[in-house]
């Protein structure tokens, strides 16, 4: 397997422009003769499907929810970055590029990140034109807020519902194309297989989740925009249905999986309350603009109510450790700091796995009304879940799995190692390196969907003769369908005793403990023993009532858990092999005396991309060397 990144040459700020010109074009009259499948209707998929249909391609779009509007992008709260510099505080495309490369701890491709920063401004223009009601100042101009890892205010937001509003914008554009008959939408359809003919992606197999019917769709190109695999931890801020199935099936068909161990643990989530917990809720990072994070200085105080702990006995540990970024230190750094204080026994709340996020200073300074205007819906959500009023008592928060920087490897055109298979949004690995900065996933999803794939897909399709699609009865199609049906039959016939969730929980515990915020060799090796055991137990003792030819939510869950049981293993393997600490990947063996991540640029300034070699075979680790010509490799410091 060869990893050809296809980065155009030339100076960094001219690469994309040059590349757009160099890409071959498809004749307008021919566009409708090409069919493109888009799996996923989130920011990346929704934007891509709508934009490609506008260009004239025949598009089919799939999602597992009952409506494209419900893709998980909808849950993003805080905001989206762009280098508009509307605040006149020194922002620029170059600074956004620089912050993102640095924030990613120098494990992302410079050229991709620069392109992302370049198109960030177009995204805001596009969204405003679609009717996204971003927050505004009284003068009618757009408002901005600050996010972690940046010292400029470049985050655009729509109350605490930015992802929802951006997604609705993309969804409206998509529905418009559906109404015009340019996109055919398939909601409640789960993709279960990629059809690959002679090494080229030619279609997908999907299961109609209402009828259980398994069907194939053939096309000239396939785009996966299926989101992240954060649910491998069972408890995460992702929606319940988020899965790694689509990318995993593609991996097994030959798409390399890059940096699977790069996962983001978000510092501000509502702590777990008990075993019944089914998911964790994020409290947007934007809260750290006004909230101050602290724990008691002494263990003995941890049981007391916050109000009884005087100012001098509080440890505002982020402000103490990172005076220049303070509470806005990047996510990996903040999460680890929270883990440290809890490990020291200074955590708060019934489980002692929590730290305070306190708004009393901000409320005194700005008034409760201003705080309500900024964060009202977040406060309401917090109160609903915890039954505590954050205007009166400080919030309790704890880190939780949130985002996966790893994903399918793609080149500069967003094409995976399977020609014809493109990967967009969180599902690819491209732009965030080892740590993603807040408000940049929405930016990346929309960049990929609105402004990258519409160009690069043309470059690919121009090389294919129109009308050369495979037929629906091609043996490769039938074989792929058969594989899906066999797998369903296999799952249905285990006839054991335990629920899919049971195995998912077991896996989650192993992953969180051994491949979570802190990782070490012994733990990872242990995990690599435990995961196959859980998997074996799964295939022996799983129980799925009902039938495969019907709506069956247990079957859906089981299929996803089966894939997570394999993804988890690859993550641990990748984490084990990456013998350095960087971003969200903290190998305890590699830390400075102060407990900060210690990168090894000499040996690990590369992308690790894993190639599947078949059932029972060890996957092979390939590398793509990263070169930093513009941002100089330096120790990331937020002090």
């Amino acid at each position, binding site marked *: 397997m060869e990893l050809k990144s296809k980065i155009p040459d030339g100076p960094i700020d001219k690469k994309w422009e040059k590349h757009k010109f160099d890409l071959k074009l498809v004749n307008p009259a021919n566009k409708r003769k090409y069919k493109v499948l888009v799996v996923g209707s989130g920011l990346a998929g929704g934007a891509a499907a709508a*934009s490609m249909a*506008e260009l004239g391609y025949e598009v089919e779009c799939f999602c597992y*929810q*009952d*409506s494209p*509007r*419900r893709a*998980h992008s*909808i*849950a993003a709260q805080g905001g989206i970055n762009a280098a*508009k510099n509307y605040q006149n505080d020194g922002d620029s495309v170059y600074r956004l590029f620089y912050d993102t490369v640095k924030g990613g701890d120098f494990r992302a491709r410079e050229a991709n990140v620069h392109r992302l920063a370049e198109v960030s401004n177009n995204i*805001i*223009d*596009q*969204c*405003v*034109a*679609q*009717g996204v*009601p*971003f*927050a*505004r100042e009284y003068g*009618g101009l*757009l408002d901005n807020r600050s996010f972690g890892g940046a010292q400029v205010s470049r985050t655009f937001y*729509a109350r605490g*519902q930015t992802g*929802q509003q951006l997604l609705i914008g993309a*969804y409206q*554009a998509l*529905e*418009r194309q559906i*109404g015009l008959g340019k996109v055919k939408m398939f*909601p409640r359809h789960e993709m279960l297989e990629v059809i690959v003919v002679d090494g080229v992606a030619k279609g997908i197999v999907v299961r109609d989740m*209402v009828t259980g019917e398994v069907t194939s769709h053939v096309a000239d190109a396939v785009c996966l925009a299926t989101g992240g695999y954060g649910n491998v931890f069972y408890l995460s801020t992702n*929606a*319940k*249905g988020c899965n790694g199935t689509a990318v995993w099936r593609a991996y097994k068909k030959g798409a390399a999986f890059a940096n699977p161990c790069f996962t983001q643990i978000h510092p501000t989530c509502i702590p777990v*309350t*008990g075993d*019944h*917990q*089914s*998911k964790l*809720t994020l409290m947007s990072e934007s809260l750290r603009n006004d909230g101050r994070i602290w724990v008691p200085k002494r263990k003995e105080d941890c049981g007391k109510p916050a109000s009884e702990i005087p100012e001098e006995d509080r440890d505002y540990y982020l402000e103490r450790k990172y005076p220049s970024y303070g509470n806005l230190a990047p996510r990996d750094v903040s999460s680890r700091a929270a883990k440290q204080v809890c490990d020291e026994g200074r955590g708060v709340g019934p489980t002692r796995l929590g730290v305070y996020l306190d708004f009393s200073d901000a409320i005194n300074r700005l008034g409760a009304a201003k705080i309500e205007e900024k964060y009202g819906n977040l406060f309401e*959500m917090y109160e*609903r*879940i915890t*039954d505590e009023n954050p205007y009166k008592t400080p919030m309790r928060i704890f880190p939780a799995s949130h985002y996966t920087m790893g994903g399918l490897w793609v080149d500069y055109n967003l094409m995976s190692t399977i020609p014809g298979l493109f990967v967009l949004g969180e599902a690819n690995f491209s732009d965030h390196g080892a740590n993603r900065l807040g408000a940049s996933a929405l930016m990346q999803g929309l960049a990929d969907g609105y*402004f990258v794939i519409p160009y690069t897909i043309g470059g690919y399709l121009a090389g294919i003769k129109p009308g050369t699609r495979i037929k629906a009865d091609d043996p490769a199609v039938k074989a792929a369908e058969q594989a899906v049906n066999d797998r369903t039959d296999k799952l249905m016939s285990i006839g054991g*005793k335990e*629920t899919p*969730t*049971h195995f998912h929980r077991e896996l989650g515990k192993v992953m969180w403990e051994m491949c979570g915020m802190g990782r070490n060799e012994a733990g990872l090796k242990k995990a690599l023993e435990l995961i196959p055991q859980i998997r074996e137990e799964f295939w022996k003792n799983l*129980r799925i*009532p009902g039938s495969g030819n*019907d*709506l069956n*939510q*247990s079957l859906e869950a089981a299929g996803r858990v089966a894939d997570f049981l394999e993804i988890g293993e690859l993550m641990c393997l990748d984490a084990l092999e990456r013998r350095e600490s960087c971003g969200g990947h903290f190998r305890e063996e590699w830390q400075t005396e102060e407990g900060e991540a210690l990168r090894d640029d000499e040996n690990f300034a590369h992308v690790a991309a894993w190639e599947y070699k078949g059932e029972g075979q060890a996957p092979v680790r390939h590398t793509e060397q990263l070169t930093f010509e513009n941002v100089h490799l330096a120790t990331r410091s937020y002090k």
Partner: protein
Amino acid sequence: MSKHFNLTLHVWRQKNAKCDGKFVEYPAENISPDMSFLEMLDVVNEGLIRKGEEPIAFDHDCREGICGTCSMVINGRPHGPRERTTTCQLHMRSFKDGDSITLEPWRAEAFPVIKDLMVDRGAFDRIIAAGGFISVPTGSPQDANALPIPKESADLSMDAAACIGCGACVAACPNASAMLFVSAKISHLGHLPQGQPERYLRVRDMIAQMDAEEFGTCTNHGECEAACPKGIKMENIARMNRDFIKASLTYRPATTSGGGAG
């Protein structure tokens, strides 16, 4: 800590759109007040699976009140007893030991039951496809700040745009009318200057589709507003009516060919 308790559920079970359904009783035992309502159902479902019975099918995804997927009528109220709360954000502390809870799907001709508590809300998507958008192809806009928008307009637009498309308004309305949902979209776009060019076209197209989907018509009961988890106001319905009256009175058939849905 908080005490666990027991409940009795009466759940609508229906195999698919074609079969008849019926209520089935299930005990829900050892429920913690900190559980969300859906976590309580998870517990019941895991018990059913272990017994080899089919779990209760219900729609859910984000479990944080934003995706609009969860949808069930709890004791005669869509999303249950708490105001401005989706089912997934409802917590068991809203109930007490020994309570008996009836669970039903959204009931409307336009939302056929797929299974148990799951319904097909595709009608909402088709209403949006008919006109709930601003026609602005990717790549065409001007700079975002070239058009200042009064904060009040942006805020009103955002109030309406907060709709999560859950369908509780339809479920709560004695006439199964979708007018709160439709009007929320019309206000979202109609409060903004960008939404003006298609304002009257939009209201006509969306209402035509809403009627074609066989939703009922508003008689101003106000149940929708009370059930809406996002606080969408009936004022939007009045606004929609106003726009529709104007749109209809000034309608002129297209004089040139072309156009299409939108």
